């Protein structure tokens, strides 16, 4: 286990953006009626978002997200020091999406901008990287935007029933601020189990690059490693499982997420999910679930536990201080 502590960096705001267009698993034409119902019951996923324009760029989702969060927080663009994109579905691989957004939105020159190639564990990895980067900056105020997410439909083979009924298009933009404080703001447990690299991967097909997924491998790797990753983190901090106000897991599917919840013996109320309405939204899933379930009134300790897991095989959990000034319901856009 790789335990890492971040200091003085807090999540200030979360905006999530989804395409307006819905697909309903109960009317998925490649399945019988009985299988449609079983699919929704067991995966927990009814609706998925899917861009109508098959050539839509991930930038078209990130751009309104960035504009919205800057407006809501009343942050000037010139106050941003770090702009990181976590995605695996950039329309072009060079230059990075972060550099493209930097140019399109006219950020100033003193900005650290690059991409992180990561999927379902990507938000937690991104949060760790950016928190450390902010702490390292030699200036009194430091701000960052982490843009996470994928247009998974761009790499979905529509006939592949392990992929199509699960994945959904979405992005999140999370605003972070570091006040130079020395108090712990997050403790991370970051792990990689590379033997699971074939559980999820992309392959070149006649129709372009498509995602391949072995559902049973993903289940086995998740259930074997995620509960241990979380309990080791809590044990390291000498915190009981009752300490976090909420557990926000990556939204894989209900079979996997419920197995993890039961393995750690958590109450259902502490583990919200956004699967029914939004499906598996890759690296946007943790911010998106927060944006649909966060209730400021229910805060007790002021700390939440987040856990991302998947493609890699990569597992990352963190206990983070959480008291954002802005968290909005998902924004639907016509795309």
């Amino acid at each position, binding site marked *: 286990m790789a335990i890492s502590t971040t200091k003085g960096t807090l999540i200030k705001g979360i905006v999530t953006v989804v395409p307006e267009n819905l697909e309903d698993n109960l009317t998925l034409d490649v399945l019988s009626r009985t*299988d449609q119902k*079983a*699919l929704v019951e067991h*995966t927990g996923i009814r609706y998925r978002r899917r861009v109508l324009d098959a050539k839509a760029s991930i930038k078209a989702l990130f751009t309104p997200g960035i504009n919205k969060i800057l407006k809501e927080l009343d942050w000037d663009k010139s106050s941003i020091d770090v702009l990181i994109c976590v995605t695996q579905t950039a329309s072009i691989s060079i230059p990075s999406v972060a550099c493209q957004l930097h140019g399109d939105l006219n950020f100033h020159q003193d900005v650290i901008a690059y991409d992180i190639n990561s999927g379902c564990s990507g938000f937690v990895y991104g949060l760790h990287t950016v928190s450390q980067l902010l702490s390292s900056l030699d200036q009194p105020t430091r701000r960052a935007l982490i843009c996470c997410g994928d247009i998974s439909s761009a790499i979905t083979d529509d006939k592949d*029933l392990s992929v199509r009924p699960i994945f959904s298009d979405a992005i999140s933009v999370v605003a972070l601020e570091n006040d130079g404080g020395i108090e712990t703001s997050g403790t991370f447990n970051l792990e990689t189990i590379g033997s699971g690299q074939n559980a999820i991967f992309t392959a070149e097909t006649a129709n372009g690059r498509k995602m391949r997924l072995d*559902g049973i491998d993903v289940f*086995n790797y998740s*259930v074997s490693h995620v509960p241990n990753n979380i309990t080791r983190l809590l044990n390291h901090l000498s915190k009981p499982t009752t300490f976090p106000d909420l557990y926000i897991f990556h939204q894989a599917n209900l*079979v996997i997420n419920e197995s993890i919840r*039961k393995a750690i013996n958590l109450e259902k109320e502490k583990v919200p999910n956004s699967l029914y309405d939004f499906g598996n939204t890759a690296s946007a899933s943790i911010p998106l679930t927060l944006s649909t379930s966060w209730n400021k009134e229910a805060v007790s300790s002021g700390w939440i536990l987040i856990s991302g897991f998947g493609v890699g095989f990569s597992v990352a959990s963190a206990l983070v201080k959480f008291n954002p000034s802005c968290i909005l319901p998902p924004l639907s856009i016509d795309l």
Partner: protein
Amino acid sequence: MKETDFLEFTAKELLVDANEIGLNTVFRDLPRWSSLNALIYVSRIKEEYNVMISSQQLAASKSLSDLYMLIQAVH
């Protein structure tokens, strides 16, 4: 674990009549077998018997007896 218990469990999970299956049943020939139902079945085996069946083990298995033996090997 008794054979009959395993067959009853399997019939319930794969939505078939318990009288219609036996240890010699080739599970891929069952009407409800699909990649999704395979995942649900494997997750239920983990929950019920605390045995993890890998995708390689499943691919190498043909009959319910093969799966029964994988579970028995742990118990």
